[in-house]
Structures are given as structure tokens and as C-alpha cells.
């Protein structure tokens, strides 16, 4: 049993790696359309990554080992986190793979290292980015934990695999409060992947950037790794949102036909979600930094309401 699960998890992880750049481009494409541009091809992110890999790596005189290990730690943490989120098929969890708190803290490992690498070269842009990133992540943390606690309460499990399996068998009709959790998860997705209105993934202006500020000193294959890991983060969180709120098609027993249908359904759902994120981003201006806690308060509110509903029912 366990070798099969390992095999499936590895394939799952490789699939996530393969589609992650596509999702980034898709969102860019949607944003371009809403702004009346044609936008780059949806395979642009792949070619950018390929180009970066073939560029030389620059390190600052002042930078230490942190700068050098950060890209690898980032990608390692994201790859392990990718094992935790099933895309189309839910195996039986083993040895705590899929633990939702561990999942959250794997994301935190990547963030911790990235923030330190922002400070490493001594550039004030990097420091600005790290400072903002750590502040935002501190303020969003209570919300994230409450959302996860609400999920744990609804599905009576701490494991993402169990949650997705339960959601797939019970359906949205059985747990309507998932819609509220979905809103909170969406806000967390926006924040964690540094998107408008919290951060802007496309600019390099010192007033707006957070994530881009931290990785400003990175170059070459290191930058490619960091770009890929932020794409992975996006994909993983999207898959989590999709499979918990709209698990239609996710299978718990392995059949070829089921797998094909599940894959197609997942593709459709993720394209819709990419569109939603793109439109959401285009319809908003970047928020003033100190207004952001208000946004989190909303997510916090929805997830607390969910818990209260669940508690009282």
C-alpha cells in the first residue's frame, strides 16, 4: 500500500511542478485581457524560467550563505508541501503526510528564508520587502489558523487528504458552510501569493512591492527557482481551495476512467479559478499597506462565523 501511495504522491508532485508555470501565465493572460491587451503567450513563464536557468548567478559581496541556500530551501519546502495536496486522487494518508499544520509551517519555512535573503545583501529594497512580508504574514496567521481549525472542525480531521476525501464524498450540499470557508481561503490565497490588493507581482516600484523586493538581489538559476517556488505556492493553494470547496470529480478509488474525468474536471475548475483571480486582481487597486489588516479581519470574520455555525448546529 505504502509504495503505491509514495508513487502517487510523487506523480502528484511532478504534475503540480509541470502545471504551476501555466497557472501563472493564465492569470497574467486574464489580467491582460481585462486591461484590453493581448498579453504574452500562456507558455511565457516556461520560457522565462528556461532563460533564467541559462543566465549567470550574481552574488553581492556582503551576502552570506543564506542568499545561496534560500532558493533551494524554498523549492524543497514547496515540493514537500506539494506532496500534501492531492490534485485528482486521494490516497490514504500515512505517517502524517498531509497534516495541515505541518503544511502551513512548510510554507512558513520558505517565507522565513526568503525574508532573510532579502536582508542579506544589505539593500534597502530587500529589507523593505522582508519587513512588510513578515508583518503581513504575522497578521494573516490568526486568520489562516482559524480557517484551518474550521476545516478541521467541519471534516473532523487534521489531514488534508481526509478533508478532501470527506468533501468529495459528502459534497457541498452536506456542508454549506464551506462557501464561507471558501471566501476566507480565497483571501488567504491572494495574500500568500502576493497579489493585488496586498502586493503587486508585476511591479518593481519600491512603494508597492513586497515579494519582488525580497528577491530583487537574486539572479540566474536562483531566481528561476524562486519564481518556480512562488508558482508552486500558487498552484498548491489553488488546488487546496478547489478540492475542498468544489471537489466534484475527485476520486478516492483508482480507475482509469475516473482519473481521466477527474483530471479534465480539475483543469476546468482551475481555469475558472485562474480567471476569477485575474478578474479580482484587475478590478482592484493595490491597497495602502496599513489598510491590509482590515482585509484579514474579513477573512477572520467569515471563518469564525463558520466555526460558530458548526458549533451551534
Amino acid at each position, binding site marked *: 500500500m505504502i509504495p503505491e501511495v509514495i508513487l502517487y504522491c510523487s506523480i502528484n508532485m511532478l504534475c503540480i511542478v509541470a502545471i504551476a508555470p501555466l497557472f501563472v501565465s493564465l492569470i497574467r493572460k486574464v489580467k491582460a485581457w481585462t486591461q484590453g491587451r493581448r498579453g504574452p503567450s500562456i507558455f511565457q513563464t516556461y520560457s522565462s524560467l528556461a532563460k533564467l*536557468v541559462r543566465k*549567470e*548567478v*550574481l*552574488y*553581492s*559581496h*556582503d*551576502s*552570506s550563505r*543564506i542568499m545561496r541556500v534560500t532558493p*533551494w530551501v524554498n*523549492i*524543497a519546502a514547496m*515540493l*514537500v508541501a506539494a506532496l500534501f495536496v492531492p490534485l485528482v486522487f486521494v490516497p490514504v494518508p500515512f*505517517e*502524517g*503526510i498531509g*497534516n495541515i*499544520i*505541518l503544511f502551513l*509551517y512548510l510554507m*512558513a519555512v520558505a*517565507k*522565513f528564508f526568503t*525574508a*532573510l535573503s532579502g*536582508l*542579506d*545583501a*544589505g*539593500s*534597502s529594497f530587500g*529589507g*523593505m520587502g*522582508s*519587513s512588510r512580508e*513578515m*508583518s503581513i*504574514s*504575522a*497578521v494573516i*496567521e*490568526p486568520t489562516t489558523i*482559524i480557517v*484551518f*481549525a474550521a476545516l*478541521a*472542525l467541519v471534516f*473532523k480531521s*487534521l*489531514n488534508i487528504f481526509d478533508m478532501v476525501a470527506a468533501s468529495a464524498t459528502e459534497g457541498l450540499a452536506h456542508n454549506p458552510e464551506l462557501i464561507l470557508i471558501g471566501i476566507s481561503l480565497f483571501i488567504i490565497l491572494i495574500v500568500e501569493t502576493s497579489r493585488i490588493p496586498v502586493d503587486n507581482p508585476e511591479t518593481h516600484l519600491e512603494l508597492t512591492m513586497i515579494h519582488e523586493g525580497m528577491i*530583487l538581489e537574486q539572479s540566474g*538559476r536562483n531566481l528561476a527557482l524562486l519564481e518556480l517556488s512562488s508558482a508552486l505556492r500558487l498552484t498548491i493553494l489553488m488546488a487546496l481551495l478547489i478540492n475542498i470547496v468544489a471537489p466534484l470529480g475527485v476520486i478516492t478509488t483508482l480507475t482509469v476512467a475516473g482519473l481521466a474525468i477527474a483530471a479534465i474536471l480539475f483543469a476546468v475548475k482551475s481555469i475558472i479559478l485562474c480567471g476569477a483571480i485575474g478578474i479580482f486582481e484587475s478590478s482592484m487597486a493595490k491597497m495602502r499597506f*496599513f489598510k491590509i*489588516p482590515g482585509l484579514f479581519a474579513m477573512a*477572520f470574520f467569515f471563518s469564525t462565523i463558520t466555526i460558530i455555525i458548526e*458549533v*451551534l448546529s
Partner: protein
Amino acid sequence: MIALLFVIGLIFLCIGIGLPLVTIQRDSRYLRTLSACCTVMASVLLSIAAAALIFMGGSAAFTLWQIAPGITLSFALDRLSSVFILIIALVSGCVAIYSTEYVEHLEGGSRRNLLCGCTNLFILAMVLVVASAGTLPFLLFWELMAGASFFLVMYDYTTPEVRKAGIFYLVMTQFSTLFILAGVIALFAITGSFEFSRMGGAAGMAGTMVFVFLFLGFSIKAGIVPFHKWLPYAHPASPSPISALMSGVMLKIAIYGLIRFLIAVFTPDLLQGLLILAAGIASAVLGIIYALKERDLKGMLAFSSIENIGIIFTGIGLYVIFQATGHDVLAVISLAAALFHSLNHALIKSLLFLTSGSVIHASHTRDIERMGGLSHRMPYTSALFFCGALAISALPPLNGFASELLIYIAFFSSIGALDPLLKILLILGLALFALASALCAACFVKTFGSVFLAQPRSEECQSAREVPGAMIAGPALLASGCVILGLLPLQFLELAGYPIPLFPNMLLIGILLLAMYGFSWMILRAVSHEPIRICPTWGCGYVTQRPAFEYTGEGFSEPVARIFSSIYRTQVQNEGTFADQKNCLFLEGRGGLHLMKIFEEYLYLPIAGFTYRTASLVSRFQNGCLDTYLLYVFCTVLGLILFLGVIA
């Protein structure tokens, strides 16, 4: 057998106390090293004894001295006390290795002998507090521990700052003893015994009173908000190995006291649990919020200790709540979390204090803003500090994560198990707990970034050098402990007889992380052959990059300070002179931002002022004239005779 090991360990500690004190006149490095060797020997023996008790069960008991019938100095070791003996032993061994070198760099000549002897006395007192079988030896050694640590804090007594810190600490620790003494006397009045094993079932009004006394006493010693002010004074003032011992171990002794009394004396009560939980959460959040703004490296670590003590209190609070509501499995998980976090925090915090001692030794400043760039100059120390920073920020796969995960599991499982009101309260607690945990990561990113990364911000840092071997070996042992406990928490807990369901296999996660790291490294190495170039940091158009361009620690924590400004209570002061009467034409002036010391201004100073006024009233009785004193004696005797006459 175990009792024998234990006693031999104690004898080694006594030799360690005696050696440097007997020859107090001689300033000899040899004797001091020998004394530290005794500490290490004792720590090895005590850890073996404690580990044997934890993993194999059983107990050991012996009586040292029967003072009077019913009043004995007797000791008993069970699994609870073994955990804390293990904490003391592990940390003090590593600290002793570190201080063989550190002490030699201190000023003070033969006073350093006193420091070594007193350190061993301090360790001995802590071991005996934990081993006490009754409240009498507990109190006796508690007071010995307080006294020894006071002398250690006052080591550098010529500095006024240190004197102030020492006195502050002494007053606070005496308050703590006072409350515990009151609790112990009340307990004796209720149960008629000084033995822990015969004190069960204090309930009702009297029980509540005893609980409040003991809770206050242990909270003051543990540094729970609002009794925490002595920590950020005492820790920066004392030598670094002493800070490591005090923060890593002594605070845990207060935790031990609380748990011991809770288990031995009280029947679990929901309100007591909620009180402990609330105190824990408040300390966790406030501690780390103050830590973020602290510029003094050791002061920051002291505030971080307050946070971690808060986390441990949270675990204890959950334990009592679950006991009171009859969820035994969850109660065990919470208690395991509290104990495990005590061990983890002891290792992490002493690691951090020792390495920051090295940093301060090398850079001659405690101010974070004047450090920087030390990772090139002190590679080993910075790697060790980094390990501690990762662990205390609760990042997997290190030990800080393992114990916080236990608390999360307890919280998450509790939400499905309790009644609605409790659930809502616990959810609130969970959210604040998560906030503290995330702020801790921000705080240590700031600290590590400002201290070790980028360019040095002062001349002394520019010329800082790596510290000698012993000052690396001690922390390195602690760091390896952090890694081992982080990778094998499940196995250790199972070995100790606490199989925790839902706990992920951290060894697997560690291997996976390493595998993914290696996997991606190999793939990219195969694909990309581009060279690496070293160049200046991009200076936004400026030609040279200077330390002044860097982001400061203060700047780093500014957003958090803005968001939580209502907690910091910053005070803006503006004063100026103007050329006209309507204050329009500005001549000169100054403005300033001050962090208000809320607890000092609204809690400590009023109490101190009241005490002072009362004392000055009482002092009028003292006029130094013999006749007056004879009059007092006469009046007292007369009063007594009358009083006894009335009673009879």
C-alpha cells in the same frame, strides 16, 4: 541504583562548589576549569538517572535528614521531576563547557572563582528543588536558588545598571517566595502535611485561596505578564552563561512547581484552567510584541522567554481544562506539550543566550542596531544562532515546531469536544497563539538579519573575530539536541509512553526536505553550467554601498509597531520655542518618541510607592533612644498580659 547515580551527581556538584571557593584568593584558571568539569560530570550522571526514570518508569526516594518528627528533608524522584532534572542537567553541562572559556574573558580576577562556585550552587539548588518530596525542602532550596541567582546577576556589581537590575530581581523573587510560603502554610493548615504525597484534595474557598497564592508565586518567578519586568532587566545584566541558566532552566523550575502542585494538591477546576490559559496567551502575545521592539539583544531574548513561558502555560491551562471536563486523552497531549516545550525551550533559549554571549563578546555591544555582517566574521556562531532562531520560530523539522504542533493538535481537537462557550474562548486563544507564533518568526528574522547579515554597522563589529572552541562546542551540543528532538519527537514521546495520534513522522519530513533539496540541486546542476559572479549590491544609482543604507532592525519592526500601536503606547513629545505668541514662527525645539513602560508606571510604581510610604510611617518608631525601646517592650508585655487575661 538510580538514587545512587543521583547522589553521586550531587556530590560532584558539591565538589564543583567547594573547589573554587576554598581557594578564593587564588586567581587560577585551572581550578575554575576543574569546577566546570565537575559540573559536566554531574550533568552526565543526572541525565542518565533522569532518562532512565523517564523511559523505564519507576521512582527513587531517600531521606537526607530528619530534623524533627514530621519535618524531614526527603527527596523523591518520579517521572515528572525527572523531566525537569533532565532539563537542568542537559543545559548546565553545555553551559559549563561554554563558560570554561567565557569566564576567562571576564574581568574581575579571583571574583571569577566565586562566579564558578556560585553557578554550581545555583544548579545544585535547582536540582534539589525539583527532587524535593515535600514542601519544606522545596521552599528551602527555592530560596537557596533565588539567593544564588541573585549573586550571579550581581556579578558585575560596579555598574549602576546591574545593581538596579539585581535589586529589582531580588525584590521580585522575594515576592514570589512570599506567595509560595503563604500557599504552603495555608496548605499545611488545611491538610496538616508537608509531604506532596499527602496533600491531595484541597477544595472550596480555602483551596481557591491556596491556588491563587501559588499561582501568583510561580507566575512571578516564571515571568508571566504582568509580573515579567524583572526578566528584561536581569538577563542583560548577568553574564551570558548565567542568563542561559536563568532563562533556560530557572524559569522551568517555576513551571515544575506549578505542575507539581496542580497534580499533587488540586482537583482540576475549569476556572483555574482558564486563568492559567489566559495568563499564558497574554504572556505569549505581549512578550513577543515587546521583543520585536527591543534593541538590546539579550533583552530581546528575555522577552522571547516570556513568550515561550506563555506557550508552556497555555499547555498547562489546556491540561487543567481538559482534566476538568473529562477529556483524558487531550489532557495527556496538553501536558506532554507543556513538558516537551519546557525541554525544547530550555535547549533553544540557552543556545541563543550562549551564542549571543559570543556575539556580544566579539562585538562589544548589546545593541542590535550596532551589529551586522557577523556571519562572515563568526561563521560557526552565526550558524548555531541560526539553528536556534529556526527552532524558536517553530519551523519544521526542528524541536520548537514539534512541541507547538502538540499544542495545536490539542487546540484543534478540543474544538470538537467541548461545550459552545468554551469552544469560542478556545478559538480566540488559538488565534492569539497563532499570532504569537508568527510574530516570533518576524522577530527572529529581524534579529538574525540585523545581527549577522549585510554590512557591519560599527567599528567593533568590523573587527569582530570568531570565538574560541569551547564557546562553540557548548552551543553546538545544544543545537544538535534541538535537531535530534526535532527529527524524532514522535519516537521520544512513544518511548516515554505517550503515543500521540495524529502526530506526523518528522524524521520522514526531514528526509523528504533533504531529498527534495538534493533532487532539485542535482537537476539544476545538470541543466545549468553558468558561472557565479561576485559583485556589489545594487545601490539604486549610488556607487558605493554603505551600512547606513541598510534596513535597520527598528525600521524592520516598524509596520508591526504601527499595526499594534495601541499595545505599545508610544508617547509623542514635542516641545519648541517660538518667536511669536501664537506659536507660528518656529525657532528651535525637539521631538521624541518614547515607549511607555505601562506595567512599571501603572502597576509596579504604585505598589512600590505605597510600600515606601508605609515603611516611612513605621520608621518613625525608630528613634535610636534606648528609653523609647524599653517603653515599647514594656507596652508589649503589658498588652500581652492584658490580652491573655481577656482570653483566659
